[in-house]
């Protein structure tokens, strides 16, 4: 299947667009995953910062307590409460950011436990200091496993930090790998789109060059056709003037010879002169036929509304059929938009054939018309001699006759003319016939205006 250039170019652009769409989709996917990784890394970063703050707060809280233990000044206990609250808020935050990571969550629960234990321990020491004084409190502090709990907190925080750092590294790595992949895909896709457009461009350039060449050839051909057409037109003119003049001279001279020297000719000589003159008439008829045939489509007439009922009756009157023939119009004929002379030639030739070749004592010729789709279908039927099916094509060719010209004088132009006119209007002509029974000629005309489908002619 040969695709038109429009199809090819459109397909090319569609493929290029598809490639761009795929790249776009990949870029979107990549950006989404990068954003996800970046969010995760930020979470880890926040978690680490929060853990460090917790450890620092725990230390500060303890330091404050120690100062209180030594000095007994209640003011130093005031920020402690805030520190503890802050620790709990931070723990909550970490719980949120590490949600979905069971290992970290478990560590976090452990850290929670250690911190609570450590705070409970300190609370106990504070209580003793407040109620019993410095020495019992110091003893209680020394006896408790405060140092161990603090170590455990430190240990847990470090573990949590290590986990988060690993996780952050993991995200950063994934995102870098993703970016690298994306860069390669982008590069490959852009290069392939560039190559694709390059090929498309070359292809279009080549196609345009081919097209231009074809156009040049067509212009040349058109020019040749125009000059051939011009020559044909001139040929018609030459035939009408230059061939007819000597023919007329021959006719006249033959006439004068047979008149002036009538007494000098014997019967055979007179017969020869008669044949000579009749052949002059025949040749004259043929030349007229050629002219008539070549004039169709060459000479334009104004398109007018033609009432075929009237036109066909005029044609019948003109042909003056003999008394033994009846020519009837079966049903009312339409009014068509066409060139009156041309449509008249169609009816005149078809009807005159029917009359000329009629071989029955009572000739019946019938004209009818039916609407068929977008066309009128006309028929002219007769009960004449009929035509053998093998001649159906031949009779529409120029100068083809079925009877010897000496028997029935005919140029063989009529049906060729009918065919040329009907086809010029976008119609069709054909026949049905039974030898011995008669013929029925059909032709169609468009029901809309019958405009001759001829290329524009150059006026010279």
């Amino acid at each position, binding site marked *: 299947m040969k695709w038109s250039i429009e199809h090819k170019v459109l397909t090319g652009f569609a493929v290029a667009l598809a490639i761009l769409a795929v790249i776009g989709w990949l870029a979107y996917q990549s950006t989404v995953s990068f954003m996800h990784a970046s969010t995760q890394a930020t979470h880890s970063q926040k978690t680490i910062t929060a853990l460090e703050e917790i450890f620092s707060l725990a230390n500060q809280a303890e330091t404050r307590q120690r100062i209180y233990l030594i000095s007994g000044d209640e003011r130093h206990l005031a920020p402690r409460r805030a520190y503890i609250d802050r620790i709990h808020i931070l723990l909550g935050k970490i719980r949120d950011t590490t949600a979905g990571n069971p290992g970290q969550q478990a560590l976090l629960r452990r850290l929670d436990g250690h911190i609570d234990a450590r705070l409970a321990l300190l609370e106990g020491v504070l209580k003793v200091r407040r109620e019993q004084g410095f020495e019992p409190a110091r003893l209680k502090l020394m006896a408790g496993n405060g140092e161990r709990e603090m170590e455990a907190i430190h240990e847990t925080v470090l573990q949590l930090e290590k986990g988060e750092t690993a996780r952050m590294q993991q995200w950063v790595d994934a995102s870098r790998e993703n970016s690298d992949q994306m860069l390669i895909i982008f590069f490959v896709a852009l290069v392939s789109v560039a190559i694709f457009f390059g090929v498309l461009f070359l292809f279009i350039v080549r196609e345009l060059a081919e097209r231009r060449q074809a156009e040049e050839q067509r212009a040349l051909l058109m020019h040749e056709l125009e000059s051939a057409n011009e020559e044909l037109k001139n040929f018609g003119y030459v035939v009408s003037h230059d061939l007819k*003049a000597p023919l*007329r001279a021959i*006719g006249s001279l033959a006439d004068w010879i047979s008149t002036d020297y009538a007494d000098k000719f014997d019967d055979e000589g007179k017969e020869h002169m008669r044949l000579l003159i009749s052949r002059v008439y025949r040749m004259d008829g043929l030349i007229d036929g050629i002219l008539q045939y070549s004039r169709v489509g060459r000479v334009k007439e104004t398109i007018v509304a033609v009432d075929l009922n009237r036109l066909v009756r005029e044609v019948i009157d003109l042909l003056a059929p003999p008394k033994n023939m009846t020519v009837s119009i079966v049903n009312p004929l339409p009014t068509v938009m066409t060139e009156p002379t041309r449509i008249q030639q169609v009816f005149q030739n078809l009807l005159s054939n029917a009359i000329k070749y009629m071989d029955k004592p009572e000739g019946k010729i019938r004209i009818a018309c039916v609407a068929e789709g977008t066309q009128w279908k006309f028929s002219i039927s007769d009960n004449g001699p009929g035509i053998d099916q093998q001649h159906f094509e031949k009779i529409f060719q120029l100068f083809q006759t079925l009877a010897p010209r000496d028997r029935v004088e005919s140029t063989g132009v009529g049906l060729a003319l009918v065919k040329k006119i009907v086809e010029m209007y976008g119609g069709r002509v054909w026949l049905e016939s039974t030898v011995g029974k008669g013929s029925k000629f059909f032709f169609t005309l468009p029901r809309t205006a019958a405009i001759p489908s001829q290329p524009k002619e150059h006026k010279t």
Partner: protein
Amino acid sequence: MKITNKPILLVEDDQVDVMTVKRALKEIHVTNPMVNLENGAEALKYLRDPKNVKPCIILLDLNMPIMNGIEFLQVAKHDAQIKRIPVVVLTTSEEQQDKVNSFDLGVAGYMAKPVDYRQFVEVMRTIDAYWTISEMPQ
């Protein structure tokens, strides 16, 4: 012809056609003298020469060498001295364009030369009959 002393001007290059016209005029007993010229240029020269008697009618062929019938009409019909002389075109051409051009230039008639000499005699008989009845300016 109504005026029998004035010549008939035949502008025609074909010898046999000239013979045909002469023979036909003789056959229908037209006694006017006949002047035959071969083309439009010669006809104009003749018509503009004050020594020559102006013809009562011009029979004009269209297809001629040097100056054809239409070209002759284009000049003659714009010449005040010539334009009133009736011109009957006698031609082989049945081209619509030739008819249009001829009548645009004010011809008095347009006859296609028939191949049949008998018919030609009838054409000439009709032309004579018409110009025998028709009035003409002096």
